[in-house]
C-alpha cells in the first residue's frame, strides 16, 4: 500500500510542479472547488443517493446494530440513513469520524439476514474508523484537479483561437500541460483504484475483527453479487435423474465461472474465509 502512496505522490508532485510552471491560478481555483466539495461531502453523497437520515424510532434495528458496532470500533455513532432503492447497496460517508453517516438501501435490508446486514454495516463502520473517506479524498484531489484542468484546456484550445495564435509558444505550453493532465489522470486513476481496493480489503478485515464472524459478510457479498442464486435449490435425487439425460452436466458451471463478473468479490470472499479459519483457532 505504501508503494502505491509513494507512486501517487510522485505522479502528483510532477503534476503540481508542471502546473505551477504555467498556470498557478488554475490550481488554486480548482483546489478551492474540491475543498468545498470535501466540506459538503456527507450531505452531497447522501443527497445523490436519495438517502434520508432516520431516527432510532423509525429504524430501531438498524440504529441498534450501528450503535453496537460503532461502540466496539471506538468511534462516535454516525448518522443512520436509508435510501428507498431496490438495488442492494450500502455506503459510509463523512469527512471525519464526527461528521459521518452510514446509509443502506431498502433493497439491501430486504435481501440480507440480520447477521449478514451486521457484517455489511461493520464493513462500513471500519471505513469510517480508518478515515477512508478522508484518505480517498486526498488521494483523488489532484485527479479531480487534472480532470477539470484538461477539460478547461481543451475548451480554451478549441475556442481560444487554435492555429490563429501568433505566439507558437503558448500553443505548445497548452499541449504539454494537456498531455501531462492525461498522464496524471490515467496513471493516477490506476493508483487510486489500487488504493481503494486496499481500503476495501482492510475494511473487510476490520469488519471481521469487529464481529468476529467474517462468514456473515462473505455470505452477504455472495448474496449481493447474485452468486448465491447458483446454489442449487433442487433436491439431489431430482437433479440426478435429470442429469442422466445430459451428456455433459458440468458445462453450465464452467461457463458461469468463465463469465463471472465479480472476480474481486470472489477474492474478497476467499480472504474472508481465510480470516474465518484464522479466527477459529484464536
Amino acid at each position, binding site marked *: 500500500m505504501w508503494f502505491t502512496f509513494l507512486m501517487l505522490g510522485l505522479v502528483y508532485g510532477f503534476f503540481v510542479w508542471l502546473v505551477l510552471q504555467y498556470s498557478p491560478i488554475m490550481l488554486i481555483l480548482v483546489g478551492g472547488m474540491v475543498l468545498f466539495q470535501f466540506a459538503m461531502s456527507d450531505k452531497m453523497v447522501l443527497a445523490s443517493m436519495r438517502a434520508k437520515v432516520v431516527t432510532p424510532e423509525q429504524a430501531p434495528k438498524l440504529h441498534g446494530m450501528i450503535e453496537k458496532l460503532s461502540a466496539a470500533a471506538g468511534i462516535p455513532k454516525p448518522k443512520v440513513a436509508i435510501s428507498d432503492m431496490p438495488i442492494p447497496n450500502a455506503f459510509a460517508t463523512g469527512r471525519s469520524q464526527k461528521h459521518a453517516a452510514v446509509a443502506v438501501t431498502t433493497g439491501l435490508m430486504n435481501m440480507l439476514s440480520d*447477521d449478514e446486514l451486521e457484517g455489511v454495516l461493520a464493513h462500513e463502520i471500519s471505513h469510517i474508523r480508518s478515515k477512508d473517506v478522508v484518505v480517498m479524498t486526498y488521494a483523488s484531489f489532484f485527479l479531480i484537479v487534472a480532470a477539470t484542468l484538461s477539460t478547461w484546456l481543451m475548451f480554451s484550445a478549441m475556442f481560444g483561437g487554435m492555429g490563429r495564435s501568433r505566439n507558437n509558444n503558448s500553443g505548445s505550453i497548452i499541449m504539454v500541460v494537456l498531455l501531462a493532465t492525461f498522464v496524471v489522470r490515467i496513471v493516477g486513476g490506476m493508483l487510486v483504484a489500487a488504493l481503494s481496493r486496499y481500503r476495501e480489503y482492510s475494511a473487510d478485515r476490520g469488519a471481521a475483527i469487529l464481529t468476529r464472524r467474517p*462468514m*456473515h459478510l*462473505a*455470505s452477504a457479498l*455472495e448474496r449481493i453479487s447474485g*452468486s*448465491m442464486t*447458483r*446454489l*442449487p*435449490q*433442487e*433436491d*439431489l*435425487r*431430482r*437433479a*440426478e*435423474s435429470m*442429469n442422466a439425460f445430459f451428456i455433459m*452436466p*458440468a458445462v*453450465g*458451471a464452467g461457463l*458461469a*465461472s468463465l463469465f463471472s463478473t465479480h472476480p474481486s468479490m470472489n477474492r474478497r470472499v476467499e480472504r474472508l*474465509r481465510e480470516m*474465518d*479459519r484464522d479466527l*477459529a483457532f484464536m
Partner: protein
Amino acid sequence: MAEVAVIFEQQLDTYTTHEAGVLVRPSKDQSASQLKAEIERAMTATDRTKIRYGVETDDTSHAWLVLRENALADLAGAVAAVGEAFESGGVIGRVVAVVYPFTWSHRRVYWIYQPRIQGYTPFAPAEGNRDQERDHPLEVRMESAIRRNLPTSRDITNWYPIWGMPV
C-alpha cells in the same frame, strides 16, 4: 473419509452419528420394493456378514442402504465394502450419493459424496429445519475447513440438498 476422522473430531468438534447412507436411484420402471430387493440381493450375494446395515426406501422411490458402525473409519471401510458388493451386483452405476451425517453443537450437518463429480459437498439444514432452508454460511465454513484433507467440490453449483434423509 477414514483418513480425516481425526481432523473432524479433534479439530472441528464434529462427530459421526455412527451412520452412513448410500443413496441408490431406481432403474427404469423399477418400484421401490423391487429396488430394495435388488440391493438386499447384492448385499447377501457376497459374504458381508460383518457389515451392519438396513435397507429403506423413501417417497421418491430411491433406496437407502443405511450402515451402522461406531467409528467413522469403520463406516468408511463399510462403504468401501458396499462398493465392491454393488460392483458385482450391478448397482454401482446407480449410486447417487454416499451421505455421512455429523453432529456439530447439537445440530446435524452432512457431507455428501457424489460419484458423478467424485467429490464431497457440504449440506447444512437451517437450525430447526424450518421449511427446507439451509445454512449456507455454515456450509461454506465446512468446506473451507476441510478442503485440504478431503476432495471437496468448491463449485457451489454442485452443492445440492437432500431433504428427508433416513440418516
